[in-house]
């Protein structure tokens, strides 16, 4: 049963790390907008021209 001396603290530290990560994300405002981010991933406005794989392939082909 000596193994418990290591395993229990390890379990607590891992769980605690998750808790700290959550508290950080809460403080950093990660949950302030639950609608916007899912749309932001579809926004291509930040890309350079011809930088998507499809466009790059087209350029190569021509």
């Amino acid at each position, binding site marked *: *049963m000596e193994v*418990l001396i290591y395993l*229990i603290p390890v*379990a*607590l530290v891992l*769980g*605690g790390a*998750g*808790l700290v990560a*959550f*508290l950080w994300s*809460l*403080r950093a405002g990660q*949950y*302030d*907008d*639950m*609608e*916007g981010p899912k*749309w*932001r991933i*579809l*926004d291509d*406005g930040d890309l350079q021209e011809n930088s998507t794989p499809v466009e790059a392939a087209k350029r190569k082909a021509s």
Partner: protein
Amino acid sequence: MSAPERDWAAFVTNTDDGKAHMDLAVDGITCAACMYEIERGLQKLDGVEKARVNLSSHRLSVDWDEEKTNPSPIVDMLQKLGYKAYPFDPAQVKSRGDAVGKEILRALAVSGFAAMNIMLLSISVWSGNASDIDHETRAFFHWISALIALPTVVYSGRIFFRSAYMAIKTSRLNMDVPITIGVLLATGLSVWQTISEAEHAYFDSAVMLLFFLLVGRYCDHLMRRKTRSFAENLATLKAESAAKIQDDGSTLDVPLSKLAVGDRVLVRAGERISVDGRIATGTSEVDQSLVTGETLLQAVGEGDLVYAGTMNTYGVLEIEVTAAAKGTLLDEVNKLLETAMEGRSKYVHIADRASQLYAPVVHAAALLTLIGWIMLGMAWQPALVIAISVLIITCPCALGLAIPAVQVVASGLFFNERVLLNAGDAIERLASVDTIVFDKTGTLTLPEASLSQEHGLSAEQLELAGRLALSSSHPLSQAIARATGAQQSLPDAKELAGKGVEAQIDGVQVKLGSPAFCGVSEEQLAQAKEQHPDASFVAFQMGDEAAHLLPVGQFMREGAVETIQKLKDAGFAIEILSGDHAGAVKHAADLLDVESWKAGLKPQDKIDRIEELKAQGKKVLMVGDGLNDAPSLAAANVSISPVSAVHVSQAAADAVFLGDSLAPVMSALIISQKARWVMNQNLAISVIYNLIAVPFAVLGFVTPLVAALAMSGSSIIVTLNAVRLRMIAGTSSQPSQEA
């Protein structure tokens, strides 16, 4: 007259790294594309460091370098992109940080972490108890559980402890009192068991209880926050600011919170008056419909009192700000409102009523268990353990979730029907309504004046009238311009203040304005008034032809007739209480086929009537919007305001409905009735659970394992049952969605 400079300094705060920061409410964001458009557009501006739109709250947060730019180009750019934006007054924005929500969420996270880790240890102990765990290992596990649980109970439990303490201090009993007793006893017992190296400890029960209850508490908070943030956006977009006249004679647009008594503000033609005050210079007619319900314009001049929320029609007024002076309408309304609010707080929520029944029963059961076992010859320690286990297993876990879970689901349904809740318990109170009292002006009718369909003009004349109306800022003219959809004003149109507009078309003089201005006879006016008792009249004249009278007024809301009919069919008693004159009210009541109506009422009269109905045992729903309705909104059992209502009324109402249609009132009643049905079911489930669990606990069969299973099982069942509301309410309220 150019728009006044705006005092931006009042809205700007500084960020930690020295940049200027401003939050704006933005109107017109409908989808993600608007979000990109606004952010890109602003980022192109020189000096703007960060622009981020919050798509859930429709707010924009901008940071900029104060040396390079100022807020004016930012707001101009938004205007150019087609969005109406108005900065938040930092003094008034309370929900921005949402401190309460974050506190609950942190407590929830901590209790979740603790519950999982303690459960890990508890399951080891339970399986060990069934096989071959040795004394040392079990004690070790219990001590670690205690180490995790004690700080958690202090940290996560303080939300309940605080509220229980407040309740006891004011000698009331709420749900948090039995919760606090249960959690503290479970923790205390477990510490004692741990010290005496007993077989069972209830740390997992105590912490899991906190976790489930905090979930319920957060749901409750989330619902109210949504409404509040929406209401703040609305208040901000209404631009409740005033053009303050400074010492040098120039005007500056300042938020209302920066005005002091004795300041002078300028109100131009067609603007809403945003302060209470006395007219220093200028004469005009004001539209008081939002304040008193009176639809006819009232002439005012120097020295007269005007109220916030009234509309200035044609003159330019300089108003000296007064505090709510004694004897004014606002003073009276505030006094009535205070009294009505006190009466309101006497209402006891279903959940608290349940806990008032529940707590004595459970605590008596625990006490009887203790006495019973001691009389049967058991030592007092094991008897106490059994008695406390009765309290632990009956701790109102399911009861704590039963109501909030339904409220959250119901508020989502309300939102789909365009109704926002101010108070969570409004659902229960709406469900018991049997009498509905409507205000007329602005509630049954639209808040903005519009042109009647029976105007008697040809399409050509109508277009001409509309184009003429564009040149005037008088609210009645604006209503005509809106109704005709006119785009282009006539080139040589001249506005004669207080009279009307005139122009030359191909050598023919056309006039639009007051009946006297167009030479309308008294007889013709009287005749028209008989036909449209609820309207004001604008005259239109071409050349030497006889003038036409155009009835302009506040006409019925869309769906008002159908909604009232449906409400009557559903068995509700309908009544109209209005501050307007009898002719207009009778006209509206006839249109809606409502027999019971009263006109010319003062705020106190409305309250008296509502109290009379309440005394007859009726449950009254008040629907109203004006300042004069605010006290009766608070006096009624439950109240709803349209979104166009004055601020005081919106704050006094339990719910606010959006849009021009009256149909949401009907949907709100339907949903709340179904929601109450589900709430009652949930309470019944909790009671049945206790009926099964308590005998086991009394007999001493409840181990921590049984407690954990029973607790999580009952919580999940009531939550799932609450979600079921979406299905039963979603299908049958379809017809009202189309309306």
